[in-house]
């Protein structure tokens, strides 16, 4: 469903991602782990067209974004592809990025109404059911600033789900949360995964990654160091760097 091939990005001659490959099939759950600044988030942002890249391509259900140095690069085609891809993939950010001037309900309704152009009533009932799904049905009329971090992140997940995505990208969804709120968010993600949602998650929650992933990718300096099943990566890592990195975590 998602195919990342040869993805290469540099900024001012500083390589950020080098020859990244990933193949995601429907229902896949993939965790990307690695030290801070290793380019994990950048990969997700490239998939969603929030950042461009120089070489390689990203293809989602046949819609392809090319690197800007590729010979068949075409800005018009790229932006069309990005538009289609964004319609199929939901994204959740580390900083939640809820719209502070709208109620929770409106946060969930604005995109369905103006992008998918569905009616107000349908958007509202969809928003309410998504809020129930993340167990925040009672907060519909609240403003984001009135919610805790964990609640905000669950609203952000519901907001992405309201667009009925075929896949979800989670960019360190629990990194800016207090420890006691992390579980609420993780259990929502776990539930989604169990319903068969195709998921790529960048995370520092190793236990969680180990439990839900079908594949774990360890990235450092923008390169794949090691990739495989969670058992393989966490219990029997082959690469010295992977071992060293995982030693910092109690899994």
């Amino acid at each position: 469903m998602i195919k990342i091939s040869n993805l290469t990005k540099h900024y001012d001659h500083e390589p950020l991602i080098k020859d990244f490959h990933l193949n995601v099939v429907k229902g896949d759950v993939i965790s990307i782990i690695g030290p801070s600044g290793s380019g994990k988030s950048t990969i997700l942002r490239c998939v969603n067209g929030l950042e461009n890249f120089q070489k390689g391509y990203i293809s989602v259900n046949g819609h392809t974004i090319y690197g800007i140095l590729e010979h068949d690069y075409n800005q018009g085609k790229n932006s069309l592809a990005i538009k289609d891809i964004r319609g199929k993939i939901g994204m959740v950010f580390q900083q939640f990025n809820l719209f502070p001037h709208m109620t929770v309900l409106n946060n969930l309704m604005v995109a369905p109404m103006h992008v998918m152009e569905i009616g107000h009533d349908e958007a509202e009932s969809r928003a309410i059911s998504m809020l129930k799904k993340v167990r925040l049905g009672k907060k519909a009329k609240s403003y984001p600033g009135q919610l805790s971090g964990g609640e905000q992140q669950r609203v952000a997940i519901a907001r992405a789900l309201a667009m009925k995505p075929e896949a979800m990208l989670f960019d360190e969804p629990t990194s800016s949360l207090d420890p006691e709120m992390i579980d609420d968010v993780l259990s929502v993600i776990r539930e989604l995964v169990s319903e068969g949602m195709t998921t790529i998650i960048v995370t520092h929650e190793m236990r969680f990654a180990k439990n839900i992933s079908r594949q774990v990718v360890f990235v450092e300096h923008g390169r794949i160091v090691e990739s495989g099943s969670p058992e393989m990566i966490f219990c029997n890592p082959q690469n010295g760097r992977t071992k060293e990195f995982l030693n910092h975590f109690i899994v």
Partner: protein
Amino acid sequence: MERHFFILSIIAIALSVLLHTDNNVCTAQDTLEKIRTTGALTWGFDAQGGAPYVFTDQKHPKKLIGFEVEIAEAIAKELGVKVHYFQNEWDSILLSLQRGDFDMALNGIEITSERQQSVLFTRPYYVYSEQIVVRASDFKINTFEDLHGKRVGTLYNTVAKQMLEEMGDVKIKIYSGQVEPFKDLLDNRLDAVFIDLPIASYYAKPNPQLRLVGEPVGEGYYGIAVRKEDTRFAEELNRVIEKLLRSGEIKKICQKWGIWNLAQEKLYLHEDLLQKYAEIPPSPEKRVPLVVTTFLPTLLKGACITIGISVLSMMIAVSLGIILAIMRLYGNKWVKKLSTAYIEIYRGTPLLIQLYILYYGLPNIGITLTAFTAAILGLGMNYAAYEAEIYRAGIQAIPGGQTEAALSLGMSRRLTLKKIILPQALRITLPPITNDFISLLKDSSLVSVIALVELTKSYSILAASSMKFFQLGIITALLYFGMSYPLSLYSRRLEKKLKVL
């Protein structure tokens, strides 16, 4: 709220005290004595008033010329002293005289009963009358009576203006400068100009596109104004004027400037008779004391025009400002440059000059705007530059994550801007926008240069004719405050309502 009431009541009490005091500045030393001992006669005038009275010589920009310069010099010579020149706005010339800035005001000041209440006039040195000027191609207006229902330009605070007002149905446009009414007449913004004959003779006679029609009407006198207590000085001036008349000096000067006519023979009448002339109001005006019912409607009308101009130009400023800010933030290289250039040019040049160009400059390339349109366009386009920068700052203050979240939900750039960025930017920019609106409210007084009579202009017209600068000034200031303060209150309430939690 209680505190506001408290402040307002203090202002009200202060005002009521002020309204009952008249401030007369007394000069201890006798003015004539002072002139003789210092050997200098200080003369107050406004060179901006223009030709042929007092104006700068185009060949020698530092030199002042005009028939009044020559009369003043002749008087000083007769007194055996030198002239000290004191440039003063014509609007406040009598006020400065009273303050003691100069010894005499000699600048086409008509002797009227209203002015005689605050200053002392000498015997006349010139008999003026009012003249109608039309376009040379226009044969419809031939007499004073023909001015009914027409658009007529005149100078403010003049007898000509009073005469037009008494006709009742003349659409009067009031100017400060002497050139502008003739320019508007040529640009078809006026049907006629009704103005003191010397001005008409000097500006309109040499211009083949203009024509003087009808007999001069509304004869009156220019006199030299001195402070009320300077009776000895006034007597001395009367003696000098008498002498200059008898010697033919004044006639010679007037002839040189082409403004001598038969009417001037009246200057030679017996002194007692002239004193009487000086005391008779030159036009059959009714003496109206300055009471609330006379000045308040004028000020309120001015305030309405101020509000109208401010609201409309702010609407232009806000919408054009948003467009400019978006162009500068999201446009391609050329669009960005265009927007930046607009902002820099409009911010970097005076509003006054922009207004002059819009109103008096554009007719040269065939675009003739009405004063009102020029005013709201001028103010609106100027303030748009400032608004644009406020919005740009506001938009840039919104975290990038907001745009990313919106884009990742499939929203287009335009939709993101409209639904996510601008509503949040508005909340940030509300205080500076209110700030600008309030300053625009006051800057709108600048549009009086294109002959619009708004609140400040209404005030200066009323104050100059009644000499109640102080009292009317406080009332006018209160009117401005009354317009701007509710605005700040409303903005504060809106701010609270829109506050992002």
